[in-house]
């Protein structure tokens, strides 16, 4: 790990302004992903801004009837929240499908959104990676590469990494918004469907956040009701990243919403696919995954996604 200096801040606006002032600074809260990457020198901040004292650790009702989730609320506390498990069940299910008990106690809501990909080539500093070291190439697309876990849609010739979060897939299906404060002290709201950028030629730029911009909360609209479920398919029964995951909200008339995890650089949802839900899993996936470009190793994810949704729909 490279040496770094360290400071604590007590207010969100102070965090953002310090991050803009100090070159090479990064925020740290739970630190479960950042420290892992710092040990491998994939992340090399020279200054850490500890934001855990900024007081953003509560969940409150919004005037509109939704929920405002502070950026520092832990994954455990969010999943266990009474209103979340009663009215936004897909979010509790997604959170509990991810990581381990120890990690969920430390991991925060904003940190979960901002976690980096688990692509093995991003993690291997002996290999090229356009996300870690722009312009070096994508080892995941090289001869004999291991791409079974990686993306099948929304990817580019520069990067086929997926976003690893389960939580974000549920937030996408719930139409969440991300609240931030900029270094200038202004607040802004970014819908989650505009938060994650597709890689294109610049896979190192992952979100719509500007330098120094600090996430203060995630906002959920009023509950949408329906039957909510999150089904995660992975190589072992617990504590593994998704091959494919499906977040589903289904109303009694058969309409609803679907988002996929494990297949793209962002939680993957399309309005035309939602609209096809009454027509079944194949109708949904032929719209949601239309134009996919899998590798030979991960083409199975297309059929797996369809069958996962079909199984969920069959359960009612």
């Amino acid at each position, binding site marked *: 790990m490279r040496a770094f200096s360290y400071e604590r801040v007590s207010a969100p606006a102070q965090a953002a302004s310090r991050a803009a002032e100090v070159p090479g600074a990064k925020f740290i809260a739970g*630190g479960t992903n950042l420290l892992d990457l710092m040990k491998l020198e994939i992340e090399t901040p020279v200054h850490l801004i500890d934001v855990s004292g900024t007081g953003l650790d509560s969940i409150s009702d919004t005037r509109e009837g939704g929920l405002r989730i502070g950026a520092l609320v832990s994954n455990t506390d969010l*999943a266990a929240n009474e209103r979340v498990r009663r009215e936004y069940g897909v979010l509790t299910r997604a959170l509990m499908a991810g990581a381990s*008990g120890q990690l969920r106690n430390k991991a925060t809501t904003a940190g979960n959104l901002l976690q980096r990909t688990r692509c093995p080539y991003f993690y291997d*500093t002996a290999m090229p990676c356009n996300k*870690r*070291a722009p312009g070096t190439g994508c080892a995941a697309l090289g001869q004999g590469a291991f791409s079974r876990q990686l993306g099948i849609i929304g990817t580019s010739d520069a990067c086929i990494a997926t976003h690893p979060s389960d939580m974000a897939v549920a937030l996408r299906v719930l139409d969440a918004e991300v609240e931030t404060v900029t270094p200038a002290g202004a607040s802004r709201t970014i819908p989650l469907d505009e938060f994650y950028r597709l890689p294109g030629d610049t896979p190192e730029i992952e979100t719509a956040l500007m330098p120094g911009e600090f996430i203060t909360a995630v906002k959920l609209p009023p509950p949408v009701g329906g039957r909510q479920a999150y089904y995660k398919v992975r190589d072992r029964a617990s504590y593994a990243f998704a091959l494919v995951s499906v977040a589903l909200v289904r109303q009694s008339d058969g309409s609803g919403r679907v988002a996929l995890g494990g297949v793209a650089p962002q939680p993957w949802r399309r309005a035309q696919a939602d609209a096809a839900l009454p027509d079944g899993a194949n109708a949904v996936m032929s719209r949601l995954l239309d134009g*996919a470009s899998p590798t030979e190793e991960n083409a199975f994810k297309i059929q797996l996604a369809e069958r996962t949704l079909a199984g969920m729909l069959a359960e009612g």
Partner: protein
Amino acid sequence: MSPPIRFEMRRRTFLVGTASAVVAANIPWRANAQPTSLAGPERSTFTLVVNGEPRELAVDNRTTLLDALREHLQLTGTKKGCDHGQCGACTVNVNGERINSCLSLAVMHQGDEVTTIEGLGTPQQLDPMQQAFFDHDGFQCGYCTPGQICSAKAVLEEIRDNVPSHVTQDLTARIEATDEEIRERMSGNICRCGAYANILEAIHQAAGEPT
């Protein structure tokens, strides 16, 4: 017969950074060059409350909570396994919650209450969870055991607090300490000797349930 989903298999690409460049440079590809001058001191002084006792530390900011316990406070009961949050050997309790001490900076724990395996019991008076691991042979080599025990104690508290898990069927009902619940909640603690069956029995005994 449902129509196939349209897709086109991606072609492999030629790497921009060629093999010869790898050999020539022979250094790992890191992220973009970062400034090297620090914005402040690279060491910090702070106090942890470890097993009820305030302990002042003056350490490099890079020191993890795990290394602070083992290397600076000589509390070597907490183990370093993978050092990346994957094995759970480093599990300790901080302010009432279990965490991976390898993935947490010591400097971020100013004033925090840390409980390690050394704080749970004594050889003369074992903690009920320690006794249960002993009674049921919940270990072989023992390296993962401090983390298993710290984690197991927290698991029972989480079930008592009705914190849901991945296998909880009804999110609004009271959660019971079933085999399935305990197994799922212990998945962040790896035992390469494979003592899982006995660990499960030990946790049941500590939970006061029939084994």
